[in-house]
């Protein structure tokens, strides 16, 4: 994007005159103002929709006895349909408030879930039932594509994680197959891969970033949990196969030239494939030749730290502030956790800070070098 520095530079070089510079400055300011305003509308309306949705779910959970069951169902199901229709009208027919319309469509997806849980509550369907979450997920999933809605893709990702969590609690036989953190790691990689696939086709590209973001968060969360000593690492033979399979799928997409050109986050995508293969290797050792708990904890710490550094590098390289923020966000709990785990006494603590500082200095050297390369390349293009 054009900024004031560039305009000044062009003015100094004589590429543009003062009148052109003034016009560019005015247009730039106008564009920024409009862009900011759009973002504010999206933020306020989406947060508003989420708050109302949470309120409706809590209303169902309170099981207020002053209103009869039939009235409650009619009220909530009616609101779901009514708000959905209003959202549709504002976004596609009236078109005066498209962002508010999108937020109302998200709200209707939340109210659909609240209505479903209300019916389940009335008929006393067993608590913590994974099928209900699955029905909610399947009920709103088509809207991702029907209305090209990224927030609903986010909601579906959350429901997917919630569903596998409850299912894991319900089906005790799953414990023997895979531990819950590996299940989330596999799910996160799979969701990230779903995001990559969405990036390949123009008509579903709107969901790419959301699925990738949600997948990445689950991967980082599960890896972070693995950096602790969990006491015994056991998985079934099929788990390394699943990891390796996901790694191969991601690599296959990245290796195909016609796909690669469509992908924006190549470095993170490749990093995700590497994570899949590394964890496939680790789980393979857990099956055939188990290592000590400390070794696994150490390995996961190295993988997690390495992945965060890769994310930082990739984020700066592609000017993707979302990736940079994600990496910085996960650095904080890692530093806190390891600080309290290993560096309680003064001498180890001093080493911890020196080592941490050295790592950051090394990263800054790499980034500086990269920046210089880019500058040289840029200058070359100009000449």
């Amino acid at each position, binding site marked *: 994007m054009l900024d004031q520095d560039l305009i000044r530079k062009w003015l100094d070089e004589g590429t543009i005159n003062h009148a052109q510079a003034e016009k560019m400055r005015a247009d730039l300011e106008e564009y920024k103002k409009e862009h900011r305003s759009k973002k504010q509308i999206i933020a306020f309306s989406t947060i508003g929709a989420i708050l109302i949705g949470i309120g409706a779910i809590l209303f169902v*959970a309170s099981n207020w006895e002053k209103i009869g069951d039939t009235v409650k169902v009619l009220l909530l199901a009616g609101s779901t349909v009514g708000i*959905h229709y209003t959202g549709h009208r504002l976004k596609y027919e009236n078109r005066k408030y498209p962002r508010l319309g999108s937020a109302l469509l998200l709200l209707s997806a939340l109210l659909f879930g609240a209505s479903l849980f209300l*019916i389940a*509550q*009335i008929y006393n*369907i067993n608590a913590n039932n994974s099928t209900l979450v699955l*029905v909610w997920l399947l*009920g709103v999933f088509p809207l991702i594509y029907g209305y090209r809605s990224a927030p609903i893709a986010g909601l579906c990702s959350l429901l997917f994680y919630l569903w596998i969590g409850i299912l894991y609690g319900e*089906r005790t*036989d799953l414990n023997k197959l895979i531990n819950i953190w590996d299940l989330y790691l596999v799910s996160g990689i799979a969701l990230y891969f779903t995001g990559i696939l969405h990036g390949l086709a123009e008509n579903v590209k709107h969901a790419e970033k959301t699925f990738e973001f949600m997948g990445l968060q689950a991967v980082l969360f599960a890896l972070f949990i693995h950096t602790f000593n969990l006491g015994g690492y056991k998985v079934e033979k099929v788990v390394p196969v699943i990891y390796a399979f996901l790694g191969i799928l991601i690599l296959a997409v990245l290796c195909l030239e016609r796909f690669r050109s469509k992908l924006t986050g190549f470095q993170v995508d490749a990093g995700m494939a590497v994570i899949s293969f590394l964890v496939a290797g680790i789980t393979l050792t857990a099956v055939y030749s188990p290592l000590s708990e400390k070794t696994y904890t150490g390995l996961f710490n190295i993988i997690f730290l390495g992945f965060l550094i890769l994310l930082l590098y990739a984020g700066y390289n592609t000017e993707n502030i979302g990736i940079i923020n994600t990496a910085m966000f996960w650095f904080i709990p890692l530093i806190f956790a390891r600080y309290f785990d290993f560096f309680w006494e003064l001498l180890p603590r001093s080493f911890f800070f020196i080592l941490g500082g050295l790592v950051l200095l090394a990263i800054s050297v790499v980034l500086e070098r990269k920046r210089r390369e880019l500058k040289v390349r840029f200058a070359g293009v100009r000449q």
Partner: protein
Amino acid sequence: MNQKKILYLTVIFWLLIFSGFIAYKEYTLRTGTEVMLKTLPVDPRDLFRGDYVILNYEISTLDMEKIPAEDSYFTYNDRIYLALELKDGYGVPKKIYRTPPENEFYIKGTVKDVLYEWETDESDLATEETIKELRIHYGIESYFVPEGRGIEIEREQRAGSKGVDVKVIVDKYGNAIIKSLLIDGKEIEF
């Protein structure tokens, strides 16, 4: 597909899901047979539906030495059909089936735990395992109550050592729905 069609399809799809759920449960309520089951309740909270009472029925634990079974081997998540005999309105286990029995009043359940018993030889080594007990879920283990009322039920039960029963409707396919909760024979109302 245009946006108008997507709107109509979504609304129809959602209403079908709502009415499907209601119709499925209403079918059982309207066509099923009423039966009382004895319980032991406690009160936790569901993320989306609030306070509820966990219902652990007498028929939730089946003693394989006392109740005849069509098959002697069951594993986790197996479907079972428990034939019930009505004694003073209460459902009492009669026989465990693998498939829906004909000419019997039965309730459908799923095996959630299996307790084994081992026979040992002279040197105390296990020689044969037999199933001692089955823990079954019938899909009627939760009763949702208004906020804070679950604790009241539990307190009343503890203080007066009152019996808590559940009135359940079971349809001809063995599907069960809780109709009401009874403390000392009285239906509780909220």
